[in-house]
């Protein structure tokens, strides 16, 4: 896994360096609307990013997509769901760290309860029992933490292998790997093999879950790269807003509830703006 981190860092440096290689030419200054569009798109590395997109697309067509299709074909849905749950459960330590860094006690509580319930009753995370017991899962990572700390997202980046990103999320990716206890547990070939299998399974799981979406986006978009760029940013903003707006009170259910207007029930998609 340390090798994985080193790779992450290498990749990020490479992409930042490639800044020098390919920059999008800004439109002429006498066309204010075009300039506004250019700034809103905020993709100064577009030529490089497009090259990375093409590279990832080739990789996907050759390896990841067929693998995901085979996985969907060969493994029953319930088992895939279980595998997904195990992977999610392995991610709870990092998730908990981020919940706490974001100052979201209820989310941290959910994550902790999920870990204990699902690891035991849920048989090492295979069954998501906690969800039915009132501890729903939520998406979070260090990129979201940085966003809540006020760091701007920066220009768009398309990373090889990892796909759409931005400097904030790319840093989050690297810090996330450092935060993961599994990065630091044990050493030797077996541990490294397990780390890599988890990394690979995560990729396969995510790709299988988005087989249909990615397929139809590619089919319907006139410019798939621009469409994925837009989708990625909107989706991230949605997750950030979810975290920001999750201000549930920390009073236990059995305790007399005081009425505070800012602590009403939390509903993920409710307060999202676009």
């Amino acid at each position, binding site marked *: 896994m340390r090798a994985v981190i080193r790779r992450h860092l290498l990749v990020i440096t490479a992409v930042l360096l490639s800044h020098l290689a390919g920059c999008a030419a800004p439109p002429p200054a006498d066309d204010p*609307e*075009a300039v506004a569009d250019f700034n809103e798109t905020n993709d100064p590395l577009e030529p490089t990013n497009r090259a990375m997109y093409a590279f990832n697309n080739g990789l996907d067509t050759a390896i990841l997509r067929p693998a995901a299709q085979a996985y969907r074909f060969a493994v029953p849905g319930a088992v895939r769901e279980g595998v997904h749950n195990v992977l999610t459960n392995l991610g709870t330590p990092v998730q908990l760290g981020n919940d706490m860094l974001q100052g979201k006690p209820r989310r941290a509580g959910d994550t902790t309860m999920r870990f204990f319930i699902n690891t035991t009753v849920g048989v090492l995370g295979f069954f998501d029992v906690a969800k039915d017991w009132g501890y729903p899962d939520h998406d979070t990572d260090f990129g979201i933490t940085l966003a809540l700390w006020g760091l701007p997202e920066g220009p768009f980046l398309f990373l090889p292998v990892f796909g759409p990103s931005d400097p904030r999320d790319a840093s989050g990716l690297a810090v996330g790997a450092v935060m993961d206890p599994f990065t630091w547990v044990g050493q030797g070939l077996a541990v490294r093999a397990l780390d890599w299998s988890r990394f690979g399974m995560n990729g396969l799981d995510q790709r299988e879950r988005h087989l249909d979406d990615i397929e139809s986006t590619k089919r*319907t978009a006139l*410019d798939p790269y621009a469409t994925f760029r837009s989708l990625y940013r*909107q989706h991230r903003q949605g997750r950030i807003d979810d975290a920001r707006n999750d201000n549930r009170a920390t009073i236990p259910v059995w305790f007399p509830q005081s009425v505070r207007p800012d602590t009403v029930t939390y*509903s993920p998609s*409710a307060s*999202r*703006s676009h």
Partner: protein
Amino acid sequence: MPNRRDFLVLTAASLLPAAARAQSGDGRASAFVKGIGDRLVAVVNGPEPDRDKRAKLTVIIDGAVDVDGVARFCLGRFWRNASAEQQQRYTELFHKVLVTNITAKLGEYRGVRFTMGRAQQREENAVVSTVVERPNNPPTNVDWIISNPAGDPKIIDVVAEGTSLRLTQRQDYASYLSRNNNSIDALINAMRQQVGQAG
């Protein structure tokens, strides 16, 4: 202090109809989305061939979606630069592209079902939340943005997991245009090809 109480009562009384109106607008928006959703699910999961489904979808979409408004939104700043004739050709094609894109997803949506969430007012629109579930895919939070909820409700946007359909479409078109000398004719040709390919 009777005066103050009267004042309070009066204020409350004058606010109530507004609140009730908003409430009924949300309720109507919910009922509207539920009705459209039920009709869409019935067509998608129905037994008839795709050609017939396409015809039925066209009727539902043209009735429920403010397609002209969405089309204008998606062209963004280029709408004003377009000639009246280009605007008309573009809008006509946009109707077809929308139906084609939805028809193309018929296969992956077979077996779809949805559950209604809450409705709320956002500016002059109503936002109705639903959860859409389809086989092989994780459940998706989908918000329906309804304009004019109390009068003649129309869908003006669909927001899936925080991603707005019309905003994504607008950025797709904007990027295509900027890579094709901002030529609206080029966009129209590309759209025509899209519709043609799907038959």
